[in-house]
């Protein structure tokens, strides 16, 4: 399964006079990245809600695919596992991991979501171990499907609800899943499929992309009330920024209404 652990939750600074929560903002940003008539490999938690929100707003024909075998379900309520029977409820197919992962490797899957304990400037992530691999300080679940998402999906979107100097690291203890590895051309030289890789990183502070020439992270937009100084203070590595940085569009009333419909009990979004 796609790792979603938030093992180092930090309290993000409150936004000024906002009506929406941080989780709602992140989910809406993620949702808007998903274009209609495309496919997305979905994990549990926020990515699931973002994908469901996209389907109920601008992308009704977004194809949801789950690594354990669910393809194109009409999800009745939030699944707690990527193999939960809700992931193949009224689906077009309840198939195997081999089938889904082969589709990913063959190039059918446009978007993939990833979360992580830590990420570096190239979008490489660690979900395996904190400290030494043989004598771990903290043992995390490992790759699960994360390495497969990061290797195969055309565009990988990262959700990190806890950006800080502990999670945005200069050097990872372990590279579980490939981002741009060490810069332009590194993925292809390593043997990964050509032309795919990290696309966006969404945190509680900002939205990031990757610089075309260096493949290092750069700011795409700052969430309302957040400054470039805030962004840099919460990262071990320097983050690039263009001359003009727009503000992230907050959730609309309609998006918030749909989110309450999707997660009425606030299981993932909280209340």
């Amino acid at each position: 399964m796609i790792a979603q652990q938030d093992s180092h939750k930090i309290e993000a600074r409150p936004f000024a006079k906002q009506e929406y929560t941080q989780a709602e903002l992140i989910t809406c940003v993620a949702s808007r990245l998903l274009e209609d008539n495309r496919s997305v490999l979905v994990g549990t938690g926020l990515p699931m809600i973002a994908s469901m929100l996209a389907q109920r707003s601008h992308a009704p024909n977004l194809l949801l695919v789950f690594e354990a075998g669910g393809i194109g379900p009409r999800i009745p309520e939030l699944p707690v596992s990527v193999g939960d029977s809700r992931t193949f409820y009224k689906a077009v197919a309840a198939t195997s991991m081999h089938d889904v992962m082969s589709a990913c490797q063959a190039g059918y899957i446009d978007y993939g979501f990833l979360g992580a304990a830590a990420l570096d400037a190239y979008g490489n992530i660690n979900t395996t171990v904190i400290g030494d691999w043989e004598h771990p300080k903290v043992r995390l679940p490992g790759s699960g499907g994360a390495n497969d998402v990061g290797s195969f999906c055309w565009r990988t979107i990262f959700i990190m609800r806890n950006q800080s100097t502990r999670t945005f690291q200069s050097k990872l203890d372990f590279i579980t899943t490939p981002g741009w590895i060490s810069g332009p051309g590194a993925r292809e030289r390593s043997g990964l499929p050509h032309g795919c890789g990290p696309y966006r990183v969404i945190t509680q502070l900002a939205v990031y992309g990757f610089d075309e020439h260096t493949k290092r992270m750069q700011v795409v937009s700052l969430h309302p009330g957040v400054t470039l100084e805030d962004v840099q203070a919460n990262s071990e590595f320097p983050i690039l920024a263009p001359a003009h940085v727009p503000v992230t569009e907050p959730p609309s009333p309609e998006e918030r209404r749909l989110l309450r419909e999707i997660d009425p009990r606030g299981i993932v979004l909280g209340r």
Partner: protein
Amino acid sequence: MERNIPILATGSGELVGWRDPDENRAWIRENKPRGLVDKRMSVREAVERFVPDGAYLALGGFGHIRTPMALIYEIIRQRRRGLVIAGKTAVHDIDLLIGGGCVKKVECAYAFGHELRGLSPAGRRAVESGEVQVVAELSNAAYQWRFLAGMMGVPFMPVRNMAGTDTFEKSSAIQIKDPWSGKPVILVPAAIPDVTLIHVPRCDRYGNAQIDGIPVEDIELARASRRVLLTTEQIVDDDEIRDHPQRTDIPFYIVDAVCEVKYGAHPTLMPYLYAFDEPHIQEWLQQAKTPQGAQAYLEKYVHGTADFSQYLELVGGAATLKRLEQIEQNKGRQT
């Protein structure tokens, strides 16, 4: 085309479960009956006969979906030791086995976590203390392609994931130059588990089994394994299987034991039949926060019960099971 194929990189992880394809063919010829044999037996007998200490063991389903819990409890009850576990999305299954002291090594695609329910205290504690050793890493797709190679009787499978990462470096895979494209390609070695445990909704007495919903990787895993132990919600007549032969996911000749255990996946989810027993899963996760708590849980529910039916009574019996059936079978009608 390249005439000399160079090895570009070699993973340093321990090679778990690989066998020479000819050695395995000979073993299959000798040990797997091709005739229809009645394989019905108790869970106790299946574990006694087919799960030795130190076995390389794989669990079907998906961590807490269609998990073969009755067999897992019996392995703990019989105090098996030194097991090597295929951590292929291992969740509640491996957690209990580790808590029961049965596990020595894990090859890890996903383990020590419970997806949305968080990290697993028992698994983490065992790895961080060195009681359980992680001997290799890989991804979910890489693991199931190891089983695919095992099923096919070939020594390895070429794949295009894991390149450029520590996941590859700690795996048992190697990387060569693809003789056709000239690009680097990774070869994952075949995996042949000594024993695989799978829970299914129905099968006949010979082991012809149907799975409802997603088979996950059980098609490949079962065929790759030397011994396959099935628990089933229901044993049906052979004719019922033959009426719908397109529905047979696992054919009899790869199955070694058939154990009828209704609710045999409790407290995990059985698609279309019963939901997670969320309070019970939470009870384990709470208790597992300390070694004493984990032991108390296992004393009460596993060692303190003679078999799975006693366990079901202890978790609430018919009332609990009816509630779980209603939740799962009403899915989609609530919203």
